[in-house]
């Protein structure tokens, strides 16, 4: 193996908010200089203050700033950076951006452009991962042309099945079918609904997973073909496909199931030649069967829970891998210790979820044993309406899940953010919920929780059954 290490002296962070700060912290620890690029309204953001150098690259709208490839590359050239870390969102999964970086001789901290492109096409990703040995949800890949075809397919897939609109989403044009007798009618009504909502009545059929859990496997691969997994994260608590909180390890995964899922993910990634940090998302059904849903070729929002239980620094590993260092770990080196939970704190009304931008007038961060807060706001900071509402992540780590829940409660109680509304009260309520405390959760949890707490049920809001989340 020919190693080709090249140490970075300076990294540009093509992102903002908490992840930009997160990347800066590790760069400081590694002695790497940082460049922050920002929109004009982000001038006072924390990541701009703590970077070594900074440049304003455009006005507030993301298309003209954080998604503005020429502006970002121009800044990278002015500051003579060695590499760009794209964070998550924005250009993190833009194959085009990865290619442009390469053409400009700037190292893109992430996997290759071709793998990004492949995993970005969800249908192609399913096909490729299936060929690489991962189980996918049984289903038709094309529209059903007749009731007979539907019946035949449903028998192959196995009931219960779900009829879904090809052009659709948001819970419309979907029908759950538990017995063969119901299928014909379900195909008709789903198709009619789809035609009305999306002007396209074509439907397909998929296995329906009751009470699915969203389990994702964190992987790390180097540029020499080595790959390991860092265990799983459970991200079943979601509203409208947005994760609200995550934990590691999952309360239901046995050691054996973890090994099966982890090995499957790693094997597929090795076949793809995957390098850098990545996450393979699965749906887990009640009987312990898991199905590949999609792969995210970037660092994820919820990476801290994995870092807490494995003592790994995922950003540091991304940088090392991009520098051309070999992974240096084998799967046997993996240690999972204790339990970690993360709550995403959004600048939103905790009951209506309406965005709540404004100036933070009082601010206190919780501390003490086993508490970590990833944030970019401070007292006096103006939360702007231009970007997503995530303002902080509160992460706790403790020896057991029960201790972690108690720790999260007291950490949230000590977290003071005044001047804007935040979802802290919502998370406190979830901590007290008996089903949550029992680990009895699935992607339908928020629907149950909101109904129980007097709010409109998620189904009325248009969340489809068996839905999985965007990180």
């Amino acid at each position, binding site marked *: 193996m020919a190693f080709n290490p090249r140490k970075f002296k300076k990294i540009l962070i093509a992102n903002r908010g908490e992840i930009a700060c997160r990347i800066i912290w590790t760069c400081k620890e590694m002695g790497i200089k940082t460049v*922050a*690029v920002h929109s*004009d*309204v982000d*001038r*006072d953001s*924390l990541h*701009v*203050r*703590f*970077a*070594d*150098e*900074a*440049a*304003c*690259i*455009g*006005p*507030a*709208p993301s298309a*003209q*700033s954080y998604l503005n490839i*020429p*502006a970002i*590359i*121009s*800044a990278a*050239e*002015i*500051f003579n950076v060695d590499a760009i870390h794209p964070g998550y969102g924005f250009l993190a999964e833009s194959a085009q951006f990865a290619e442009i970086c390469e053409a*400009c001789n700037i190292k893109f901290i992430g996997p290759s452009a071709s793998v990004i492109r492949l995993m970005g096409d969800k249908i192609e990703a399913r096909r490729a991962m299936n060929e690489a040995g991962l189980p996918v949800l049984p289903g038709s890949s094309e529209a059903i042309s007749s009731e007979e075809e539907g019946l035949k397919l449903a028998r192959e897939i196995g009931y219960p099945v779900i009829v879904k609109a090809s052009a659709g989403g948001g819970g419309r044009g979907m029908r759950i079918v538990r017995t063969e007798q119901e299928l014909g009618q379900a195909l008709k009504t789903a198709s009619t609904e789809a035609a009305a909502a999306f002007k396209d009545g074509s439907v397909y059929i998929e296995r329906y997973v009751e009470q699915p859990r969203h389990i994702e496997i964190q992987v790390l691969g180097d540029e020499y073909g080595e790959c390991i997994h860092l265990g799983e994260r459970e991200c079943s608590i979601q509203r409208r496909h947005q994760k609200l909180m995550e934990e590691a390890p999952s309360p239901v995964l046995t050691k054996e199931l973890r090994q099966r899922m982890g090995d499957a993910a790693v094997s597929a990634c090795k076949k793809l030649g995957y390098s850098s940090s990545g996450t393979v998302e699965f749906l887990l059904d009640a009987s312990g069967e898991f199905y590949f849903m999609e792969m995210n070729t970037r660092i994820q929002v919820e990476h801290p829970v994995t870092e807490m239980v494995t003592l790994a620094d995922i950003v540091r590993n991304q940088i090392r891998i991009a520098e051309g260092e070999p992974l240096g770990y084998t799967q046997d080196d993996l240690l999972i210790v204790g339990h970690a939970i993360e709550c995403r704190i959004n600048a939103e009304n905790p009951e209506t979820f309406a965005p709540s931008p404004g*100036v933070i*007038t*009082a*601010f*206190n*961060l919780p501390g003490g044993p086993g508490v970590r807060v990833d944030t970019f706001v*401070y*007292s*006096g*900071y*103006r939360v702007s309406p231009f970007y997503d509402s995530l303002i902080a992540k509160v992460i706790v780590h403790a020896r057991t899940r029960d201790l972690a829940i108690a720790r999260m409660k007291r950490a949230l109680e000590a977290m003071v953010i*005044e001047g804007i509304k935040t979802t802290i009260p919502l998370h406190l309520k979830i901590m007290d919920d008996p089903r949550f405390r029992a680990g009895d959760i699935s992607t339908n949890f928020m629907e149950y929780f909101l109904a129980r707490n007097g709010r409109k049920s998620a189904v009325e809001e248009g969340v489809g059954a068996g839905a999985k989340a965007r990180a």
Partner: protein
Amino acid sequence: MARKEGDLNPNRRNKARAESSGRPGASVNMDELRELIALLRENGLAEFELERADFRVRLRRESSPAQSNYSADAPAVVPTPTPPPVDVVSTAKPATPTAHHPGAQAETAASEDSDLHLISSPIVGTFYRSPSPTADPFVKIGSNVEPETVVCIIEAMKLMNEIQAEATGEIVKIYVENGQPVEYGQPLFGIRS
């Protein structure tokens, strides 16, 4: 970048000139006109009208902040330069560390020139005063510019972008140096209309 509402409507000025040159014995010249404009500004006057036997001129001054340069591509969103100061209860705001911005010093200088129209950089890149290393600069202090006058080049990703004045007047300040990196919104030139 959109044109700022000017101190002087160039059409009026041209019309005054045309009227005066068309009539024998008409007595207005550019120096006089400039003096009138200066009078307007120095005394903070909003409107001024002068009538003589053979001509009449009216000058109206719109008071607009010097910093409002809108990118032609941007929709109606106004970039807000600074948030209002806030009385904070706790002092958790980080004090000292501040990243080194290319624009820091120039902005301080430009903020003192509130009566000038500023040409700001529409992109992040490297500022050049001439079309090529050996050529003369596009403009100097004292140069008169029209909206389509090219005042500089900003290089980004090996592309040379010609920056137009988008205003009429005289260059009185240059805030950056040849070859200096500049950021979006950074003041480059100060123009007196």
